[in-house]
């Protein structure tokens, strides 16, 4: 039936856009996991923070969507660094699981800070109304295309950063083996800070991109966190998308989350 074929094609297009957007916070989650070695559930609330930061500059100051995405990155990243320093870093010596529990508690707190300020209402970004583009039976919104482009640019930037810059290489070194990296004089502390900034920044971009498609509320981040984990765990797909861009990707592919994977000590 041509009708259902067209439907499948349309779903494939939508799925491609949604999946690419989802990969952005997933890379953030993965990067933090690789360097700090605990599942940082507060990616959820930082996605929400990014979405609301973008919302404020977009609706109050009338920044265009792409500039608001940049603001989402910076605000969520900065929040990530501060929250890690104040809340999660002191818990790290107690182990990955305690830190993970702390991250869930942190997410609850941050979500409610957003809720306290903005309330529970759904909010939409201030975007120009544009007609969908039509290719035969396929429809695609200009905003979807813009999101796709932003997501791809963000991932390319991550790839270039990790593959070609000195700091990026240092980050991969810490992700691979913290002890060895520190022997080579890499400041693990600084790498951890940078990873938090970048990782949570990407989470913020992801939250904003998801919100551009629909609307945002304090639970925006939490709602997608499962898909983010799934994307992060099924890393083959992301690794393929971002090339070698995902730090630590090779390592986890070799022994994915196995109990016998060497538990290296995360930087303090």
């Amino acid at each position, binding site marked *: 039936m041509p009708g259902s074929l067209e439907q499948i094609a349309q779903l494939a297009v939508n799925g491609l856009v949604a999946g690419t957007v989802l990969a952005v916070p997933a890379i953030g989650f993965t990067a933090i996991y690789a360097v700090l070695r605990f599942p940082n559930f507060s990616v959820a609330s930082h996605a929400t923070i990014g979405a609301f930061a973008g919302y404020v500059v977009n609706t109050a100051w009338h920044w265009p969507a792409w500039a608001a995405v940049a603001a989402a990155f910076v605000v969520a990243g900065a929040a990530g660094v501060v929250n890690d320093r104040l809340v999660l870093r002191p818990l790290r010596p107690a182990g990955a699981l305690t830190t993970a529990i702390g991250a869930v508690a942190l*997410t609850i707190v941050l979500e409610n800070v957003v809720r306290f300020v903005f309330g529970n209402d759904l909010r939409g970004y201030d975007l120009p109304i544009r007609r969908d583009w039509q290719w035969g039976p396929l429809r695609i919104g200009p905003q979807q295309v813009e999101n796709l482009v932003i997501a791809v640019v963000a991932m390319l930037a991550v790839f270039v950063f990790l593959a070609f810059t000195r700091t990026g290489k240092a980050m991969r070194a810490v992700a691979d083996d913290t002890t060895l990296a520190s022997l080579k004089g890499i400041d693990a502390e600084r790498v951890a800070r940078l990873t938090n900034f970048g990782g949570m920044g990407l989470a913020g971009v992801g939250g904003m991109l998801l919100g551009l498609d629909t609307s945002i509320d304090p639970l925006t981040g939490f709602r997608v966190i499962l898909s983010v984990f799934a994307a992060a765990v099924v890393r083959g797909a992301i690794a393929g998308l971002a090339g070698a861009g995902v730090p630590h990707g090779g390592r986890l592919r070799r022994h994915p989350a196995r109990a016998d994977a060497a538990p290296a000590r995360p930087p303090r």
Partner: protein
Amino acid sequence: MNGRTDVENYLVAMATFACLYALLALGLNLVWGLAGMINLGLVGFFAVGAYVSALATKRGGVPIALGIVAALAVAAVAGAVMALITARLRGDYLAIITLGFSEVVRLVASNEIWLTNGTDGISGIPGPWRGRVSPVAFNVIFLVLAALLVTVVLGVLERVRHSPYGRVLRAIRDDDQVAGVAGKHVLRFKVEAFALSAGVLGVAGALWGHYTSFIAPEVFVPLITIYVVLALTAGGTGNNWGAVLGAFLVVFFMEATRFATGWLPGLGPVQIAALRESLIGLSLLVILRVRPAGLLPERLPRVEPPPAGEAAR
């Protein structure tokens, strides 16, 4: 109604909820405190128990006691399956997967409308002697039942903790490779501990449904998991008495924030709710930071060393 009975009814209701939280904290303590496996999706098992018992008693017409047993069985099976699936994964991945499980349960409950009535939830769940006695008497009866159940579960889990079985669980928690080398079937112990724990969580869910007479997907939010983790951490991970104490403290704390925030001027209901929830998260963070062992830290049962001659043999 005069003020005094109002206060009494309120206290009875809160004590009942504290008992339900105590069951949840005891269930978590078995798997996390004793066996060292994290379960951040405990609200999922709680929900499974609640739905099983509600459906069995309301649609299936079975007695409430049987519904609770069914809740225990189904939740335990779900726990065993979860433990088998995640058997080879490291602890932090278990955290992700259990969190995922609870969300899956919530999504299934929201969308499988033929079974669960979707987001409208199930109302009119029967309670023991509800309708045949006055509401006040029902509340008191339920509190007694819940307290009895807490006592039974506490007794059983204390037996487990002091038994050689509990010692194996602690050994697995501290180092499962060493336990395996010592000849213990680590996987079997893990699966059993997870199943038993999930069963306790399921029973708590069943009681919740029979007590409040209404369940819906939005009841089973991750915040409940946080409440329970907070209760156990505050009380003392690994200590069953601590779990019960922590549950009562958390319910007391939640209610105290209700009154405290009520006096704050100029805040809307959403803001007050946000303030209370963030206080819960904040207090968990503070306890993790300043007193991670909890108010009643785990005390290992004393084991008499065998006489020297016997050890040498």
